[in-house]
Structure formats: structure tokens, C-alpha cells
């Protein structure tokens, strides 16, 4: 079995695709370019599947499913530190591989239809391939350095793709914002890696974790390392305070949003934490901090999502919120649950984005849901798949999102009841804004222009086929890990051997009995259902449409005429406070956090402006500065005691 070769092939295919399309995008015809790119990723997917099968077979044979390492070549050695270019194939990387290449190929296929009218089609496909390449490096690498390379690489591709329609300044600003925020995160990540080198003398996962198991829980150095790494994750996975780039990143083409900003890249932070689970288990304080940030992010983003009218913005905030859930799961050492949610989220969020893309495509680039409505007749496939996605994300049984979210919430319940309650609240919000989106888009009367109505059409097969695939996955993804010891948790168990060793309590068998578990499930499903119904009442029965931004938001006069007591109650008790809160939080995100980031940038620029004045062109001053420095150095060395 040439595992090494197979491992090398997986990232190689997209790279080849990138090289062909990247250098020849002027000469290669569009259809061919799309085919090349898609086939490249599909080949990776098939190879991954093959590898997966081999791994499973192997694991069954030997029953010790240790990680396979494929060392391609020795890379560098710095002093005692040897870094090899090697891939690690284990349960975690295989899962990520399948998700990245699987969802990736579907999105590539979709892009052929979606982007075919774009001038830079070849370039776009090349960038997508490059992205997949880096993403594969990220998840396959067997040490932190390779992960960092992938990490930086996906950031770069994300930057290039957000700014793909670079004629618009806003898009460039969004791209730059994404880049800056990611850089801040990367700095933390880089420092964390160097700290790991300092502490363990290696960056190889297996060695680091082996050494880490001998450390005590709560080791301060581990605390620092995990926090620094988490800063990286905050940037990449859009957690407070570094989340504002993700909604802005929706400026990029929709397939990009689906692939990078929903299904794969943003989950890199979760992947990293799961990968480093031993370190995180060793540092309960970090986990507490992550938990706090995660729930805050989940609620904040969900409440902002209630008010958005841009179809992609809603999905973007929803992504931020779901990422919060994943981290919430990780924070209570429910690593499997977190990964499970990553997988299901990849299915349904990619589905939703692609569905949204299909809608936008049909609506001639209209993104405002206030100008949509009643699309279910014109876009039947999109509607049904979008519906499935919505049900899945809302956490209604028996679709995928229900199981994964429920598992997270069950673990959280065990850990902390307040967090659980907040989580359920977030789940209610999720359900509400998703159904609101669904209803406003597909139900009611068409509110667009005549021209748009005339133009409405279902998308071509290259676009609907991925939708159908993803819809099936979203619907059935839950079977991966049914409650009470599903396949996934068995499969992933070996990954957490080290963590179990250092902190057995965190991995003790669930103490809650089945009846409680069922009640929890019922509660979360029920809450989601109720939110969905409220949304139905609000937006379908009553036909409310969010007011254009020019008029006042709350319109009590209209409501007075309304017969539904529920509505008034809802308006007074829930909608207004939440709207107020959402507005406040939105401005918090937009102004405070962006303000801080922009402020830092401004400070650097201002500092630069001041500092360059030192360079005043006068030799006299230059020499004077030199002599002064000499005086200072001599004074420092001979006359100052320190």
C-alpha cells in the first residue's frame, strides 16, 4: 500500500489544477478550465475515499488505529528542531479531508454554472483550487508548521477571492479587513507555535502530545500556548472580537462564501483545537474562556442575524453563530460533538449558501430579501433544498443539525446549566431568523421588479445537482452519530486517548440518564419548532415585510389593527427588546471592534507619518542623531546600572 504516494496525491491534484488554470487562464477555454478544476478536486475526493476505506480496513485488522504518517521529505532542521514535510492520516484528518474535498467538489461543480458569465472564470477556478490545496495542507500536515502554512495560505486565498470582483472599492475593503483580522489571529498562532517549540522542542503533533500528557493540569505555559493558539482560531473562525470580517467577506462570489466562509476555512479553528485537544484538556481555564467567548459569539451573531435583510448577511451571521456552537462544544471537552457539528454544518451551510446563490442568480444579483418573495414556484428545486437546509440548521429532527447541535447542548447541560439555557435561546433565535429568511424569500408575493420577475428561472443542472446532493447529506447526515454512542464517536475515540489520560474526569461516561437526554432533545427541538412557527405567523400568515430602512422600524399603528394577540405579545415582549439588543450588538460589532482594528491601523499610519518626519533630509540632524545614540549607548552601558 503506497500510503505516502496517496497522501501526496491528495493535495497535488488541486495544485496541478491551480498551475494549469493559473498560468493558462488566458488560453484555456472556460468549459475546460471548469472541468479541470472540478476534476482535480474530485480526484482528491476519490483518493481520500480510497484512503479512508484503507484506513478503516486497517483499523479493523489491527484494532489499534494509530495515525499513519507519510513523511514526504525532511524539510528543515533548526538546531535541535527537525521539521519534516509529512502528512498525518488519522481519524480527524480523514474526516476533514472528506468534508473539504467532498463539499469542495460540489462547490466547484456549482461554480461552473454560477460563474460562467464572469470574465475571470479561469482565474477564479485557479484560486479555488489553490484554496483547496492549502486547506488540504492545513488538515493533513503532521506538525504545526505545515498547519501554519496551510493556515496562512487559506487566508491569502480568502483575501484574493473576497476581492475577486475587485473593481468595487467596498470589496477591496472587505478583503483587506478580512486579511487584517486574520493576521491578528495568525500572530497569536505563530507565537503559540514558537512557544510550543520552546517548550517541547518539536512541532510534530504526536511528539508534542506525547510529551504533553506528562504535564500537570493547569500548567501555566500550556495555558499561554492554548490561549495564543485560540487567538489564531478566533481570527480564522470569526469569534468575538475578531468576527466582523466574516459578514463583510460576503462581498466575494457566493461559491466562495459557501466553500471558504462557511464550510471549510472558518472551521480551521475548530480543527486546530480538536487537533490540539490534549493541550486544551490540560488547560481548563482556557476552555472556560473559550466557552464564554463561544456562547457570547453564538448569541450576538444570532441576534444580529434577526435583523439582516441581505440574504447572504443572514447566512454569514448564522455561520458566526454556529461556529460559536462548535466552540461551545469544544469548551466542555465534547470534541466529537464539535467535529460532528463541523461536518453537518458544512453540509447544510454550504447548501444554504449555494441555495442563496441560486436565488441571487435567478434574481439577477438581487440580494435583499425584501425584494424577493414567492420564489418557491419559480425555483422549486432551490426551494425544497433550501427548506431542508433551514430545517437542518434550525435543529428540527430528524435532520442533521438536530443531532449535532443536540449533542453539543447535552454535553453543555452536563457541564453548566446556564450555558445550556443560553444555548437553547440561541437555538431559538437561529430557528427564527432562518425561517424568516426562508419565508420572506420563498413565500408570499413577489416583491421584485417586473424585469426580475420576467427573468426568474431555475438554475442550470450544474448548480442544482450540488444542491440536491447537499440536501440529501443535510437530511441524512445525522446518522453519522446517533445519540447514545454513534459511529462517529467510536471512530474518533482514539484521537482523545491522550486527553482521557490527562483528565479522565472530563471524559467520564455521561451521567445524565436517557430520560433527561430525551427531555433535553425535546426541549431544544420544541423551542426551535416554536420559533419556526412564530416566524411563520409573522411572515407568512401576517405577511409582514421588514420595512425599508428609510421608515421607522416599529409601527405600532399597524399592529393595533392586528387581531392576533400573539403578535402584539411577541412584538412587545420579544421583538422590540431583541431588536434593540440586536441593534446595540450590531453597532458594538461594527463600531467598537472595527473601530479598534481600524484604530490600530490608523495609529500605525499616524505613527508612520510622524516617524518619517524624523527623516528630515538634513545631514546635520542625521549625524547628530548618531552621536546622540552613541552617547546614549555608552551612558547605558557604563553609567546606568541595570
Amino acid at each position, binding site marked *: 500500500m503506497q500510503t505516502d504516494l496517496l497522501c501526496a496525491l491528495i493535495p497535488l491534484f488541486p495544485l496541478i489544477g491551480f498551475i494549469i488554470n493559473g498560468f493558462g487562464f488566458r488560453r484555456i477555454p472556460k468549459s475546460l478550465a471548469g472541468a479541470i478544476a472540478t476534476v482535480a478536486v474530485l480526484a482528491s475526493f476519490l483518493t481520500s475515499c480510497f484512503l479512508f476505506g484503507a484506513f478503516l480496513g486497517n483499523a479493523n485488522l489491527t484494532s489499534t488505529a494509530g495515525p499513519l504518517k507519510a513523511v514526504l521529505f525532511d524539510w528543515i532542521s533548526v538546531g535541535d528542531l527537525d521539521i519534516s514535510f509529512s502528512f498525518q492520516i488519522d481519524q480527524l484528518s480523514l474526516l476533514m479531508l472528506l468534508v473539504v474535498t467532498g463539499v469542495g467538489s460540489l462547490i466547484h461543480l456549482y461554480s461552473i454554472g454560477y460563474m460562467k458569465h464572469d470574465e475571470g472564470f479561469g482565474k477564479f477556478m485557479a484560486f479555488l483550487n489553490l484554496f483547496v490545496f492549502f486547506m488540504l495542507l492545513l488538515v493533513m500536515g503532521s506538525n504545526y508548521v505545515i498547519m501554519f502554512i496551510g493556515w496562512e495560505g487559506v487566508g491569502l486565498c480568502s483575501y484574493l477571492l473576497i476581492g475577486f470582483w475587485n473593481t468595487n472599492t467596498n470589496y477591496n475593503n472587505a478583503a483587506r479587513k478580512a486579511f487584517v483580522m486574520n493576521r491578528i489571529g495568525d500572530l497569536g498562532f505563530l507565537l503559540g507555535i514558537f512557544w510550543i517549540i520552546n517548550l517541547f522542542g518539536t512541532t510534530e503533533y504526536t511528539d508534542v502530545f506525547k510529551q504533553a500528557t506528562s504535564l500537570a493540569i493547569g500548567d501555566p505555559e500550556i495555558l499561554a500556548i492554548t490561549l495564543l493558539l485560540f487567538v489564531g482560531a478566533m481570527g480564522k473562525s470569526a469569534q468575538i472580537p475578531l468576527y466582523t470580517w466574516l459578514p463583510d467577506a460576503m462581498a466575494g462570489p457566493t461559491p466562495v462564501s459557501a466553500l471558504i466562509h462557511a464550510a471549510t476555512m472558518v472551521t480551521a479553528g475548530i480543527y486546530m483545537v480538536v487537533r490540539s485537544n490534549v493541550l486544551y484538556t490540560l488547560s481548563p481555564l482556557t476552555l472556560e474562556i473559550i466557552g464564554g467567548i463561544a456562547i457570547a459569539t453564538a448569541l450576538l451573531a444570532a441576534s444580529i442575524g434577526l435583523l439582516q435583510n441581505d440574504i447572504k448577511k443572514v447566512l454569514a451571521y448564522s455561520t458566526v453563530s454556529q461556529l460559536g456552537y462548535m466552540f461551545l462544544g469544544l469548551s466542555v471537552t465534547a470534541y466529537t460533538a464539535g467535529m460532528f457539528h463541523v461536518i453537518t454544518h458544512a453540509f447544510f451551510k454550504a447548501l444554504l449558501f449555494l441555495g442563496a446563490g441560486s436565488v441571487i442568480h435567478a434574481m439577477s444579483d438581487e440580494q435583499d430579501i425584501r425584494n424577493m418573495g414567492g420564489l418557491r414556484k419559480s425555483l422549486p428545486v432551490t426551494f425544497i433544498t433550501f427548506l431542508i437546509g433551514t430545517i437542518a440548521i434550525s435543529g428540527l429532527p430528524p435532520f442533521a443539525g438536530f443531532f449535532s447541535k443536540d449533542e453539543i447542548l447535552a454535553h453543555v447541560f452536563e457541564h453548566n446549566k446556564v450555558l445550556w439555557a443560553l444555548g437553547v435561546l440561541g437555538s431559538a433565535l437561529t430557528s427564527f431568523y432562518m425561517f424568516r429568511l426562508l419565508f420572506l424569500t420563498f413565500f408570499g408575493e413577489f416583491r421584485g421588479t417586473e424585469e426580475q420577475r420576467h427573468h426568474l428561472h431555475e438554475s442550470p443542472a450544474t448548480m442544482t445537482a450540488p444542491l440536491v446532493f447537499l440536501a440529501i447529506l443535510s437530511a441524512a447526515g445525522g446518522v453519522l452519530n446517533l445519540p447514545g454512542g454513534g459511529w462517529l464517536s467510536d471512530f474518533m475515540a482514539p484521537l482523545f486517548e491522550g486527553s482521557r489520560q490527562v483528565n479522565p474526569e472530563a471524559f467520564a461516561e455521561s451521567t445524565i440518564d436517557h430520560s433527561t437526554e430525551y427531555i433535553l432533545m425535546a426541549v431544544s427541538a420544541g423551542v426551535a419548532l416554536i420559533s419556526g412557527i412564530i416566524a411563520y405567523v409573522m411572515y407568512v400568515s401576517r405577511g409582514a415585510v421588514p420595512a425599508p430602512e428609510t421608515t421607522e422600524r416599529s409601527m405600532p399603528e399597524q399592529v393595533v389593527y392586528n387581531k392576533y394577540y400573539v403578535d402584539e405579545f411577541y412584538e412587545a415582549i420579544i421583538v422590540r427588546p431583541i431588536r434593540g439588543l440586536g441593534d446595540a450588538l450590531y453597532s458594538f460589532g461594527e463600531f467598537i471592534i472595527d473601530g479598534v482594528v481600524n484604530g490600530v491601523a490608523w495609529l500605525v499610519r499616524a505613527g508612520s507619518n510622524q516617524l518619517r518626519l524624523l527623516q528630515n533630509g538634513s545631514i*546635520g540632524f542625521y549625524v*547628530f542623531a548618531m*552621536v*546622540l545614540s*552613541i*552617547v546614549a549607548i*555608552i*551612558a547605558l552601558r*557604563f553609567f546606568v546600572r541595570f
Partner: protein
Amino acid sequence: MSEFLNQFKQLTATGYLFWVLAILALLSAVWVVTARNPIHSVLALIATFFCLSGHYILLNAQFLAAVNIIVYAGAIMVLFLFTIMFLNLRREDEESKTNLTKMAAVVVGGLLMVMLITIFRAKSAQVPTFNPVSFDSRTGLVENLGSILYSDYILPFELASVLFLVAMVGAVMLGKREAGDRHF
């Protein structure tokens, strides 16, 4: 202080010559930097070189004393003088530096001097002293220097010619008048 004076009184004629030369060198050095007229500066610098050559002779470095006069005072300073005359720089049109910058310069320079001197006079400075037993008074003679220069230091000596080539080519290249350049 009195110890210093006592020492001072015991000096021989050479000792007094040292002081005279030292003071003259410093004074003419100050003149170099303060003179308004560039030509005075050049002359003062030449005076400094002569004082320093005197020091070299006192220190038994006769060869370098001669070279100093020939190369520095003879060649380099003439080159300076030539340039000054050539550019006709006798006029007093410079010196617009404010007194503030001058003050700052003098203060910083003075500070540097005070600090360095304090360091060099400190007990722990461990300034080397001469060793009467192994002292070789022929150190600075031509014969001695020549044999070292052409044995141990042959490589830098030869490569210094590269430096001169660069300087020569460069000076010609930069100084040459191109067609269309001004005459002087």
C-alpha cells in the same frame, strides 16, 4: 592635584614638549572647527598635523611622523586647499546653522568627551603600561615596519591598491567635466 603638579615639576624637557605639543594640537584643532574662513581651517589643520608629527617623533615613530607630514600635510591638505581655491570658497556665505543646534552639538559632544574621559581615567580602565624589560625602541623604525608590512600584512597592502584604483577611477568619473557642464 598637587600630586599632578609634583609630577609636572619633575618632567624633563621632552615631558614639557609633550604638553606644549598636546596643547597646541588641541588649540589648532579647535581652530579648524571654528574658523570662519575655510582657508584658515586648512592652515589650522596643517598645524595640527605638525603637532601630531611632533608627538609621533616623541613616541619614537619617526617613519610615521615623516609619512604624516608627506601624505597628510603635503598631499591631502594641498588637495583640500586646491579644491577650496578651485571652488572659490573664500566668501563667508555659509553658517546659517542656528545657535541652538550648535549649542546642542557642543553639549552632546562635550557629554561624549566627559563620559569617555571618565571611563578611561577610571581605576578599572586598566590602561596598559609599558614594560621596561621587553621594551623595544626600534618598533617604529622603517626597517621594522617594512618587514612586517611586506610579510604579515602583504594581502591588505596589495588590496589597498584596489582601493586606490576604485578611488582613482571614481574620482575621474565623478570629477570629469561632461560636454555641457559648466566651467568654473
